[in-house]
């Protein structure tokens, strides 16, 4: 930390007083950033404490069964709370979103940085930033009134016709002993437009801009010398691009993690299209629910103590799983980062 300061003050031959101020500034900056870190940590701890406190009653009453059951019945007196279906919904929709958004985003970013002529790249970039700024409730309404009907009558219909009779691998049984086969099970129940697939797709659309924007930024950091070096060895455009992508992989991975965080925490848009049921199904056409979704749906009207506490338990689960996935991402990141 101090070394560059010294060097620069020597280089500019600065007056001792300047050096003194620079020292104070240094210390101030360090102090402020340390303070920021401490505060962030404190806030996180505080959130955790508040959620834990709120969920305490539910933890006592429901315990581990919360994670192994999927019935959600908040009717006073019936009171059954299991988060499994919601956790499944979060996992499935996030997975679909990343599966589609990451390659698409990389494609978009490559197009903007390495393919499109400047007169096209600039407006596309601008559009991208615009998309990232649209509030999620607008995505949700668009999803419910435009995407979902289209999905149901076109894409899902086509997918259903294509897959419903393809039975390669038996993977289980439906209630009533009919065998469930892959991949026909993915379209079981027929097109509905309000399902895991719709939830995953709306998330894809929502995280696409942010992943693309970051990927674009890191791709622009790819050094000209390496580009020249690769071409000079006879690399094709595609091979050079691959080199650039490998060079930028850490940044791209980070972009994907950010996208994932947004997908896990997204509420309104998903709620508008996912069908909001507490069921677990291997069918992409089945209705489901995410943890963040159930929260935005029911929190405000959670009208008796155990119900409210169970909601807090959901929030706590969401927080912990978000922290864990981020941690896992960090570990992975350290693995792929160049030493």
């Amino acid at each position, binding site marked *: 930390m101090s070394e560059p300061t010294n060097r620069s003050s020597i280089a500019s031959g600065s007056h001792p007083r300047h050096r003194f101020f620079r020292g104070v500034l240094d210390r101030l900056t360090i102090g402020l950033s340390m303070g920021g870190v401490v505060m962030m940590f404190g806030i996180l701890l505080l959130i955790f404490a508040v959620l834990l406190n709120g969920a305490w009653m539910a933890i006592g009453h429901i315990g581990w069964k919360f994670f192994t059951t999927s*019935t*959600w*019945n*908040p*009717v*006073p*007196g*019936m009171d*059954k709370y299991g988060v499994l279906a919601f956790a499944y919904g979060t996992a499935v929709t996030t997975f679909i979103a990343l599966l589609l958004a990451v390659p698409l985003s990389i494609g978009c970013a490559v197009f903007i940085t390495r393919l499109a002529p400047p007169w096209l790249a600039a407006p596309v970039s601008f559009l991208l930033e615009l998309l990232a700024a649209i509030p999620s409730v607008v995505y*949700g*309404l668009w999803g*419910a*009134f*435009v995407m*979902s*009907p*289209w999905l*149901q009558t076109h894409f899902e219909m086509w997918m259903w016709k294509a897959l419903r009779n393809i039975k390669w691998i038996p993977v289980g049984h439906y209630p009533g002993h009919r065998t469930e086969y892959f991949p026909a099970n993915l379209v079981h129940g027929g097109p*509905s*437009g*309000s399902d895991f697939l719709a939830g995953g797709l709306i998330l894809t659309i929502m995280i696409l801009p942010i992943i693309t924007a970051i990927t674009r930024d890191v791709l622009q950091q790819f050094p000209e010398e390496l580009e020249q070096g690769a071409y000079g060895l006879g690399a094709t455009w595609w091979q050079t691009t691959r080199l650039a992508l490998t060079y930028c992989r850490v940044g791209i991975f980070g972009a994907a993690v950010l996208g994932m965080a947004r997908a896990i925490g997204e509420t*309104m848009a998903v*709620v*508008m299209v996912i*069908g*909001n*049921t*507490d069921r677990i199904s291997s069918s992409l056409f089945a*209705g489901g*629910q995410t943890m963040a979704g159930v929260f*935005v*749906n*029911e*929190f*405000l*009207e*959670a*009208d*008796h103590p155990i119900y409210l506490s169970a909601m807090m338990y959901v929030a706590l689960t969401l927080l912990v799983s978000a922290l864990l996935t981020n941690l896992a991402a960090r570990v992975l990141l350290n693995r792929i980062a160049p030493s």
Partner: protein
Amino acid sequence: MFKAFHKFLMVAAPAALLAIGTVGTSRAVEISGAGSTFVAPIMYKWMKIFQKSHPNIKVDYEAIGSGGGINGLIGKTINFCGSDAYMSNAQIKQAGGAVLHMPEVAGPEVMSYNLPMVHKQLVMNGKLIADIYLGEVTRWNDPAIKKLNPGVKLPDLPILVAHRSDGSGTTFIFTGYLCKVSPTWKKQVGQSTSVNWPVGRGGKGNPGVAALIEKTRGGLGYLEYAYAITGHFPVARLINKDGYAIQPSMPSVIAAQKAVVENLPADLRLHIINPSGKKAYPISGFTYLIIDRDLGYMSKTKAKATLEFIHWILTKGQKYAKTMQYIRLGPAMQKKVLAQLAKATWKGQHLSY
């Protein structure tokens, strides 16, 4: 699908504009309420008009959901609460034991469906609706539906059941109705702001449910009257307790109020579910203004202002209900509610307003 989106905008935009319009003067007494989103559009309108004749009172209302409003009342952070569900005994106890429920307007609930090939208005009854929501009747050409709609050519389509996914007073009233007409429903599912739905898909808010219905041929769901009427969604006539098929409308809901007013509970905690009468529509609820019976926790001026605002809503404010597609209080009902308001005190003393 764009039509439906347009419909949504028609409903949402005026509410938003009204919300912007409520800017108050600075030297006024400020009172704040919170709760029901259902009542928000007319509440904003009331606030705006009330402001004109009462420049010294500034009302603020936050549509955070009925549950949130009730919590505000329990925590004494607001002066009045708007709620579509009345408070449970436990909640009243939490709030200190004595609250006053004052119905302000009524809101019927309608069964809306998407069967473009059927040109005649459908008729349904409580048992049928319960069976559909239990997953026992699954197709539109089921004999049970045919029987209620002789001469109507019903398609061989699955019924796509839609319900609210967010906790709401609307669901509370709807499931209350199903409990009343179906013992099975009462036993298996029950009544609450959210329940464990045996079948169907959930949509968030009226727009969410409307989107689910509109999207798929064969869709069916319950909507708030105001939303359905503004958006011109097709609605079914419902057979009431005495066997009459009733169109959801202002007269039929006022008739329903009349039917229950005779044997109202003393604290006015009720929904107008399955009343008898020739013209009474079977599913409507009140949306309530709830306050502490004794307003001692706020200043005297605030208490006065609160009572004044509520009194105004219950009297002069009623005439604005119609244009906003809410159903006003019938005269008999209004009398009962005003009597309820008269019970309010401030540190034991009755205030004039």
